[in-house]
């Protein structure tokens, strides 16, 4: 029935998730960090869709639908925060955003 085993998809999504997490950790550019978070969410989406097929349940697809809404909102808000920050200090480097500490 299924030509490609579900576990392949799940493994791919795990790889993508970890790459995304690596992006958040490695990069200092806020924009890239945001993109990486988006990639993580997308990786999860792939898991959901694959499971949805495997389990013959629509819940996974619905969840993905919601995740997309969340992703859109997060990007909008995140970029808005970035713009506000940029207005006060012209930077997209998170290391410049470290006045609060101790």
């Amino acid at each position, binding site marked *: 029935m299924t030509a490609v085993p579900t576990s392949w998809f799940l493994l791919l999504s795990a790889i993508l998730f970890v790459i995304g*997490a690596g992006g*958040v*950790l490695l990069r*200092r550019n806020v924009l890239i*960090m945001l993109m990486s978070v988006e990639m993580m969410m997308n990786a999860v989406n792939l898991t959901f869709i694959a499971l949805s097929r495997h389990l013959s349940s629509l819940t996974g697809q619905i969840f993905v639908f919601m995740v997309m809404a969340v992703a859109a909102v997060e990007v909008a808000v995140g970029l808005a925060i970035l713009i506000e920050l940029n207005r006060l200090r012209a930077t997209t480097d*998170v*290391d410049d*955003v*470290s*006045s*609060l*500490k*101790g």
Partner: protein
Amino acid sequence: MIIQSIWLAIAFPLAGLLFNGLLGRRLGRGVVGIVGPGTVALAFVVGLFAGLDLLALPAQDRAIVVTLWNWISVGSFRAGMSLLADPLSVLMVLVVTGVGFLIHVYSIGYMEHEEDRLYARFFTFLNLFIVSMLILVLADNYLLMYVGWELVGVCSYLLIGFWFRRGDDPQDPVRLKDGELVPVPANLNPADSGKKAFIVNRVGDFGFALGVFLIWTTFGTLNFADVFGAAPEIASGTVTVITLLLFVGAVGKSAQLPLYVWLPDAMAGPTPVSALIHAATMVTAGVYMVARSHALYALAPTTSLVVALVGVITALYAATIALVQTDLKRVLAYSTISQLGYMFLAVGVGAYASGMFHLTTHAFFKALLFLAAGSVMHALGDVIDIRRMGGLRQKMPRTYWTFVIGALALAGFPLTSGFFSKDEILAKAFEFSPILWALGLLTALLTGFYTFRALFVAFWGSARDQELFDHAHESPGVMTWPLILLAGLALFGGILGLPQILGVDHALAGWLHPAFADLEGEGAEAIHHGLSAGLEWGLLGLSSVIALLGIGLAYWFYVANPGWPADLAVRFKSVFKLLVNKYYVDDLYDLLFVDPGKALARFCAQGIDNAAIDGIIDGGARLIVQGGAWLGRLQTGFIRHYALAMFLGVIVVVAYFFLR
């Protein structure tokens, strides 16, 4: 019956506290000075009537529980905001409010130089102290007792640090008083002392809290009656742990080894506060708690032995330190620790009534001594070093005579109150183990010595600091009258507990008997020693001799042969052979006894006290703060670092679940 309204004893000082706290500053010191002591006096009256009510009841019914409201009731757990009025708690109420009242009155005079604002605040805090202590002693469950226990700690913190601005700034070691700059005495940083008291108390409270917690989980209730009723069915190991934990609290609150370090510093507060802490409140809480929990302690012989040993060792240890102190209040502070040691010795050997007796007499004479010392300080502009005093008995006769009476009582001079209570404890200790008795007796000797050493140096002889001497004056009546009243109590307080062999009833033991009736034979035992009359007379006599010997030694060292060099050295140079002989004795004595003794005392005072115990506590606190600062440095402010730490956290959590 007024005993049903025993809560009034708390309510009056509480009302005074609120009144002075909220309005005192505006209404002026006249009103404050009436409201503060007045409300405490009312509380005393309530206690008095409650006591009469108790007497009217049959002995077995002399325990009234007054439930104000049901504080908490969750499932099977219930704790009432309820008070217990029985002979034990009423005795404490009378001591706390009675002595507290006199201290309040005295404070009117003592604090007269303070600003209005501070004056009002001082009385507010004093009342808060009384209220907290009353909550502690009137509680009918461990929870409410814990409330009082914690509140007392906070109060001591506020009051010891009352003159917080002294020594606040190292560049400005003076404070303003009467418009003049007065130097801050050395090692007296009130804010630090307050902090020290609080920290050390926290250590003790921590043990107490755990003990209460363990009671709760073991018994499912915190009510005294229920706990004590169920106690015999509990495994003795558990009871031992509970009592040990509670005793940790008592050690902190009552300044026993090794948690006594806060008390000598506590004199950084105004002297009435020292009197209150040392005599009527705070430090007696530990003794009271053990006495209150006697049903548990009676089931835990191991703990009782620990209590007795800690008590007697502390008594001796503190007495040796007191030998070399040159600060009048510090001598008294160490003597308090030492006397508290006696009380713990008493409750440790199961003589609860004797412990309470000594607690009561000690409240009288120690309050007296502190207030008299305060009177001296008041006269000398806060000078407290006995080496700068001398000859004060001419200038301040009332203070002098009352101080003498207090000193006699403390030293255990025959027929004073301290004599009877101390002798009773020693007799009980002898019954338990002659070793404890011997240690107690040695302490008594030292007590007589150091007490009269301070007395002779401060009040006898000639003035050492003429300027101070000229400035000295007797304190106003509002301060000396409390002294005189307390002197009366210190002198005659012994009639509360005359020994059986004198053919009179032991009034206090009889009074307390219902509270301790559950102990087998305790009631009778408090009155009758298990000793033969001859032995008892012997012990009594020995106690008298020891007390006199201590006083005599002090006289010999500091009056007959004043050890203060300068002028004496000159005088003795041209004297007879006999005196040279005396020198020889002195040298020998110095060599054999005084020097090692002094060295030991110095070692205790400086080596153990300052270095080890202070070091451990300060070092511990510093280590913790350092740890905090170190953790703060981890907080770099960089998102990348935070994200990485979170990521590692995720890995650890996932790995834990994956590999479990």
